[in-house]
């Protein structure tokens, strides 16, 4: 006795996952039911169209940051870097950050987090690609930079430690924005484009959860915490920007 042909047999036929014996049972059934056979053939066509559409993605080279060894290494380094960070006192301020959520959205460009992201993008394009003098003060003058920027911005700033993500602080400068002076910090990573962090006081959006945006060739992750806005900028092709933003936020909150 043969079990009757079921929906599960038909689904498995589309996927070509039936044992030979069962397949011949199903195919006899399909010969007798041409309308069902037509429906399933259409599903098979769609299945192979989907597979060929997505196949090239799996052939793309895997980003180096996704290697298990790279992840394990950044975890090993994360702990000491964390304590250093707390000791060095990071990007500013008191208290704890509230929970963070990353959202991608369209934003009004004139004010708030949207404006901050744009300003960060402008500064990035001007300074990050400058080979000669991207920063006013280099990593060796970090202390002077911090006290200068804290005075100009009107609240205490510090330099986040991004060593866990493989980025080295190279220097910073004060930049002009429509909302007053802002601090631009630049980071380097071997073989990769620079990353920048812009921060300034916020008039509106004093607390805002993370938003990721992109304009043309750069992307930003921006947020505000206790009156200070932050925007991390990198070229659009850079991956792993959100974990870096989260690390900066955590460092600032734990100061």
């Amino acid at each position, binding site marked *: 006795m043969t079990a009757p042909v079921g*929906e*599960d047999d*038909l*689904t*498995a036929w*589309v*996927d070509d*996952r039936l044992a030979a014996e069962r397949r011949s049972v199903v195919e006899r059934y399909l010969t007798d039911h041409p309308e069902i056979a037509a*429906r399933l053939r*259409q*599903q098979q*066509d*769609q*299945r*192979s*169209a*989907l*597979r*060929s*559409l*997505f196949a*090239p*993605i*799996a*052939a*793309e080279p*895997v*980003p180096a*940051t*996704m*290697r*298990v*060894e790279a*992840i*394990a290494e950044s*975890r090993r380094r994360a702990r000491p870097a964390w304590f250093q960070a707390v000791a060095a006192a990071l990007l500013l301020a008191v208290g704890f950050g509230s929970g963070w*959520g*990353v*959202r*991608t*959205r*369209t*934003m009004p460009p004139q004010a708030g987090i949207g404006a901050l992201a744009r300003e960060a993008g402008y500064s990035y394009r001007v300074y990050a690609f400058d080979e000669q003098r991207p920063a006013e003060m280099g990593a060796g003058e970090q202390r002077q930079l911090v006290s200068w920027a804290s005075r100009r911005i009107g609240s205490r700033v510090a330099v986040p430690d991004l060593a866990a993500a493989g980025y080295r602080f190279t220097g910073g400068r004060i930049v002009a924005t429509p909302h007053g002076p802002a601090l631009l910090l630049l980071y380097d990573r071997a073989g990769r484009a620079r990353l920048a962090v812009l921060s300034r006081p916020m008039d509106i959006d004093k607390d805002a959860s993370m938003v*990721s*945006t*992109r*304009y*043309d060739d750069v*992307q930003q992750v921006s947020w505000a915490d206790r009156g200070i806005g932050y925007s991390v900028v990198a070229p*659009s*092709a*850079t*991956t*792993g*920007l*959100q*974990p870096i933003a989260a690390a900066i936020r955590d460092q600032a909150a734990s100061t």
Partner: protein
Amino acid sequence: MDDRAALIEPLIPGLRRYARGWLRDTALADDIVQDCLERAVSSWRQRRGDAVRPWLYAILHNLLVDHGRRAPRRPTVVSIDTADVVALAVRAEQTDAIEHGDLLRSLDALPPDQKAVILLVSIEDLSYAEAATVLGIPVGTLMSRLSRARDRLAELIGAGARARLRRVK
């Protein structure tokens, strides 16, 4: 060699492809895969003998669903170039009758539950049992959901193609 690496790394291309099935923004999709891998490495010992493949896909799937909840159908700030990269990459060698644009739009229009089964089974080639584990549902439920999802996808593709033909006329 680290056995974690030997078990995890061969699955990364498929994980990236699964994330791209959900998100047209390549950088965002890769950020979520990165998050998935970091979680996998840090909770490797809690896995307790579960098969690696469905375990990894389940972590990724849950992150993608969480992301979808936080960013509910909002217009995203992604340039057209980025958004259509999948379709553009294959347009040149397209030979079959199904327009890739219709296919992607129809896939995006499926309810998340139905999209997940199609991506996991048809594209990622997970077994029915593995896909059921990823989604936390019985195999029977998975099979009928897959069948409904395929019918729905066919309807959407048909509607999209008809609309396109009307515009052309």
